[in-house]
């Protein structure tokens, strides 16, 4: 019988070579997501609290939101940055980094349903439903979560210090149908598809980046065909951003199965 033994190894502090701040060149990426099949009508919400107010808003399940021509909204595209790796940020993003990102409780749903913000940027959660009390309960992987009342009087303001590996769920427990996600990244390179299914991310430093494709339905979108290649088993694709050019991924078809339908 062998005795288990332990080897203690000195940890060497690795000094990360700091990126030289030479002139960086920039490029962009865009695309349009389309649902390739039918997801069915979104289910109506069973409004069992504050029905006299919330019941007026014709609330629907927002897990899968499609627009005209089966355009798929709320797909998140962002750049994977290795732990500790920082992407160069274009100066155009500077002002936005200090403006609060706003999440509103409005009509007994969250507006927007998906919100991107950067670490250090204030997150402002407000309540515009007169006479209705909401709480906001956010669960994170890397940051401490919170669960607080939000009144009509003043928004609650949070700052998240660390990037989140996946979009983080936000809920209201008084009205448990209310759901949103916040995408917390160190850099501003996050695209969220709109009602037309379109997304665009501008001023990305040139070079090969690993992009993550995510949807609320089942998380990372695996094996999705792109103009060239496809996303891998982790829902990522390595794409090359070229100086002064916009990489157009064209129409990207997503099956209902990939969204859990």
């Amino acid at each position: 019988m062998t005795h288990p033994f332990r080897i203690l190894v000195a940890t060497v502090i690795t000094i990360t070579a700091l990126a030289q701040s030479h002139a960086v060149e920039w490029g962009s990426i865009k695309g349009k997501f389309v649902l390739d099949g039918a997801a069915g009508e979104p289910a109506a919400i069973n409004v069992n609290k504050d029905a006299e107010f919330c019941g007026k808003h014709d609330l629907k399940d927002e897990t899968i939101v499609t627009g005209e021509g089966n355009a798929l909204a709320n797909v998140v595209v962002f750049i994977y940055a290795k732990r500790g790796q920082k992407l160069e940020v274009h100066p155009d993003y500077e002002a936005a980094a200090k403006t609060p990102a706003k999440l509103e409780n409005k009509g007994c749903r969250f507006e927007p349903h998906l919100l991107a913000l950067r670490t250090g940027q204030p997150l402002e959660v407000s309540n515009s439903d007169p006479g209705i009390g909401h709480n906001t309960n956010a669960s994170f992987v890397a940051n401490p979560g919170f669960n607080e009342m939000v009144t009509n009087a003043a928004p609650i303001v949070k700052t998240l210090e660390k990037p989140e590996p996946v979009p983080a769920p936000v809920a209201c427990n008084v009205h448990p149908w209310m759901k949103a996600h916040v995408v917390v990244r160190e850099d501003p390179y996050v695209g969220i598809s709109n009602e037309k299914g379109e997304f665009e991310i501008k001023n990305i430093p040139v070079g090969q980046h690993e992009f993550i494709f995510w949807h609320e339905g089942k998380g990372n979108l695996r094996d999705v065909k792109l103009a060239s290649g496809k996303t891998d088993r982790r829902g990522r694709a390595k794409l090359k951003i070229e100086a002064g050019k916009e990489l157009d991924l064209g129409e990207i078809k997503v099956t209902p199965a990939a969204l859990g339908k």
Partner: protein
Amino acid sequence: MNSSVRIFCGWLSLVGVILLGGCDMPDAPQFRLNMVQMVSDATPTPPAYQEQIANVLDGMFGTPDEPFALPETGLDLRKLQMAAGPAWTDDKGANFGLYRKHCVHCHGVTGDGRGPTALFLNPYPRDYRAGVYKFKSTYNPARPTDEDLHRVLINGIPGTAMPSFSLSPQAELESLAEYVKYLSIRGQMEIALANYAFNDLGEEETVDDKGEPVLDDEGEPVMRLIPLDPASDEEQRTVITELLAEIMDPWNTVNEQIIVPEEGAIPVDNRPAEDVAASVAKGRELFYGIRANCMKCHGPTGLGDGQQDDFDNWNKAHKQFLDSLASSSEEDELTGTRDSVAASLYPIRNAIPRNLRKGIYRGGHRRIDVFWRIYAGIAGTPMPGSGPASPGAQGTLTEEEIWSIVDYVLSLPYETPSRPLEALPTNLELVN
């Protein structure tokens, strides 16, 4: 038989080899992997990584019979050794194996809240692995203090299966509280490792001796998993040391997160009856108003029959997994495992707001206990906080208002149960 070489890193400047005495018994209890995490949509973890994660955890934390703690955790190994292992008593009457003797049948060997008795309990025993605790003196997202854990062991959790251990000697309680912390830190590390392996390691293209990519029959590159092997990978060692530091920081700084009520706002004990009545009336108004919004969950008469559709974080995680599984049509290497994980879960239970007319307070019945619950909310559950969310932040309610609600809540069990006061009307003109 465990004969693995365990390698891990510490802030030690020497490379040494330590032989641990004793061997694992053939059927010694093993820590179980957090399988819901391993098969979740967030970190689908291939079997190879599951095994590697188990190995790394084994190196960092040892086994249920032979716990180990890196100096960075600040855990007291002697206390852990007293709580770990099989239950026995030495010739001087000192007890060992306390966790297995007192706790394991409910909280499970791994601290996953899934001991053999757990299935029959409601609420389920705490799963320590997220580091989230309900009844504590700190801000909502903060860890519990040692004193908080100690208080729970002394008082038990009235109204639940969690018994009181007030008859155990102080040294045993300290050892048990340390062991609970150890299981939390280990569980948090496991989640961090699953995230690290999935997000930052994953697959890479294989190359042959000439550095050329190896292709399969269809011309696609052959992929291989980058092994999680901190023993031979210095960068991984550095990352894991950082991850541990990130987990430890909130535990180590918890004393900065204690909610200490303002001196001036604490109502004195021997107040005149009319002052108490006025405070109760004010608390009642707040309870039914929209700023505190207590009524929406606790119901129009405080019976806990308001919003009952929601879940606590632990049940929610299981529910999300089951929902996702139900809507899955694609197969992958984890499909079989997902089915067996689903079959192993206990029924999902709703988070029911407390019936405030019973006068049973799970987190303690002192005024300060109820104050902490309302101020910070109850972590891991739907119950939100109404005070400032962190030191120096702005709260929804003032401390004075919270103390009034405390007075009202504590008065509720004494209202004639069959004739609870009518709820105050909600402010309907605001609603239209």
